[in-house]
């Protein structure tokens, strides 16, 4: 290791915590105020928000639990209750929380959520079905399953988009109307989408600062800034947050301040798969001392990369299009072909040196074909990649020595190609 690299922390990212905490506190206390609560997996939470329900989203809860350091204790409860450690840790986390409440096992009170009046299981992967089924069987939760098929070829997109759109219109919306006892609030959905459009536009401007050499911020900074385009959707505070972040990044550019001191990065990296929510700091400490900075990734790039296509005047149609449209097609990036297309573009746009494929040991979807993806991209762009195994929240699935060897080997491969 040559230079002594250190991270230059952003000020604005400190301001996300109160917003996030408020979201979860509101959700925790919703029942006390007589509000209805939904849980959701896949892109269905916006319908709950439009109806004024408090709603939580599977990965969002995992990110939150990771952030407050509650992941381990909740997972332990799930294991005690008989959930297998091979089960997706998002799934286990929710079962653990439910079991802790049902059995009166003390866990971090901030991690306790009210059981939902409706669970919308948007099934992007088989595990989401099991998760919903578990909630219904074990806790008597009402479940609305909807299918969100994978798209392997773009030519299948229009007909799958139609199938998904019809589920939104013919199943999801009527069910919310029935649960809430009122007509669906299309106006509110439009408002939420207008705010999202603004936030995602600002966020895209912030993404431009990843292109600077040296980069002005890291994927980890963006990881903690995801909530405004995710479960804080529709909250105008997200606009203020990203305005401030954009200003800070602009100032950094003007003053020549890089994301990592003293002079910026030696390696510019891509991150595939989920973010390791409970271990963001730990991973950061594995990169920064080597002068490595992770700049972009598939999952964080899922959150509405094309705000220009958001049409708040046609809320349900645009929502279906964001996931299954011909131009913005978030679900396509789950397929190996879509992954290759996306990463190829990111390699060009962000001048990447190497790829880290984070393979969650319990995820059934994100790891698909990672070795082949590395191979194809290496042949096309001459960029090496490594697979790093771990988990988003379960430390039992993380081996420091194994991860460090793979990362160091990646740096060595990049160095040897530079010579």
């Amino acid at each position, binding site marked *: 290791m040559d230079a002594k690299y250190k991270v230059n922390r952003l000020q604005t990212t400190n301001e996300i915590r109160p917003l996030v905490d408020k979201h979860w506190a509101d959700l925790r206390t919703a029942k006390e105020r007589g509000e209805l609560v939904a849980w959701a997996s896949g892109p269905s939470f916006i319908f709950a928000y439009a109806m004024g329900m408090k709603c939580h989203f599977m990965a969002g809860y995992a990110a939150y639990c990771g952030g407050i350091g509650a992941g381990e204790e909740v997972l332990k409860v799930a294991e005690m209750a008989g959930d297998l450690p091979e089960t997706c840790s998002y799934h286990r986390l929710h079962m653990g929380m439910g079991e802790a409440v049902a059995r009166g096992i003390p866990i971090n009170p901030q991690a306790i959520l009210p059981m939902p009046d409706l669970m919308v299981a948007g099934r992007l992967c088989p595990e989401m079905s099991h998760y919903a089924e578990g909630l219904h069987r074990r806790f008597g939760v009402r479940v609305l399953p909807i299918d969100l098929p994978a798209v392997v070829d773009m030519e299948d997109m229009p007909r799958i988009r139609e199938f998904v759109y019809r589920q939104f219109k013919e199943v999801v919306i009527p069910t919310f109307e029935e649960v809430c006892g009122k007509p669906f609030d299309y106006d509110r959905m439009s408002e939420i989408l207008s705010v999202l459009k603004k936030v995602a536009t600002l966020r895209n401007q912030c993404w431009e600062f990843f292109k600077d050499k040296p980069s002005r911020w890291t994927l980890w900074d963006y990881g903690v800034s995801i909530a405004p385009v995710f479960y804080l959707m529709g909250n105008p505070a997200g606009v203020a947050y990203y305005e401030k972040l954009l200003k800070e990044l602009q100032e950094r550019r003007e003053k020549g301040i890089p994301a990592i001191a003293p002079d910026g990065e030696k390696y510019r990296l891509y991150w595939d798969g989920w973010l390791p929510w409970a271990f963001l700091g730990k991973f950061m400490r594995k990169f920064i001392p080597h002068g490595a900075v992770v700049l972009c990734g598939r999952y964080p790039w899922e959150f509405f990369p094309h705000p220009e296509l958001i049409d708040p005047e046609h809320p349900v149609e645009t929502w279906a299009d964001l996931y299954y449209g011909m131009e913005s097609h978030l679900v396509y990036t789950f397929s190996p072909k879509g992954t290759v297309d996306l990463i190829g573009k990111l390699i060009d746009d962000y001048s990447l040196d190497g790829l880290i494929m984070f393979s969650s040991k319990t995820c059934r979807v994100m790891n698909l074909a990672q070795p082949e993806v590395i191979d194809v991209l290496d042949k096309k762009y001459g960029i090496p990649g490594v697979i790093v195994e771990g988990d988003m929240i379960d430390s039992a699935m993380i081996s420091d*020595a*194994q991860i460090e060897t793979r990362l160091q080997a990646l740096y060595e491969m990049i160095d*040897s190609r530079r010579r």
Partner: protein
Amino acid sequence: MAVVAGVDVGSLCTKTVILDGNGKILSYDIMRSGHYYKGAAEESIENALKSAGLKKGDISYTLGTGYGRGAVAEADAEVTEITCHARGAARLFPEVHTVIDIGGQDSKVIGIGDNGRVTNFVMNDKCAAGTGRFLEVMALALSVDIGEMGDLFFASKEKVDVSSMCTVFAESEVISLFARGHKKADIAAGIAHAIARRIMGMVGQVGLREKVVMSGGVAKNAGVVRAIEERIETSLLVPHEPQIVGAFGAAIIASERMSATIG
């Protein structure tokens, strides 16, 4: 030119190679790592120095590698065992494009480009299946010396399948095969084929490109070497002392860094 050392601290064994200024091996040492990696590294360097008739101060640059690379107190730098195995194998066999390394507790397959540099790799370091430790446990279950396992392969007459990949399950499978009257040699061959099957999957991920070098302690087991050759339908190049390829590679890199500093 300066004398340098490469020290490979593996989970089971620690290896040291000392090179003279012309890149010639002056001495090497292989010893069990035990539980105290730092002590093992020191002792192994000491042993190698002694065989070469040198003393500590004669070494101008030391490079650590292997899982315990951080424990080499003398090290001027650390490089992963992946790069070191590739460099060691490429120096011994310049035409190499794939390295299969099966060590004490891990196995890896490394793809090497025309310039001798790593292109890609896969590693199994999560469980002992198909590693040296696996063979040790199997030798115990068969009540044979680990050194005999390779020869037994060639005495096998009947095909016996050892289907378990997990060391613990494979051990009980071996015991039950024994109880069913299968011969030691046939079971030993079944074990070698089980390892080969696992390696085959890793080779598939990296992509087989000849020539293929096998390194690591398990390369001393001729039965496993043959079983892998049969699976991948290619003959393997096995160095005279396959266990020191990583340490040798580390010493080569140490030499280059030394000349870069001087030059």
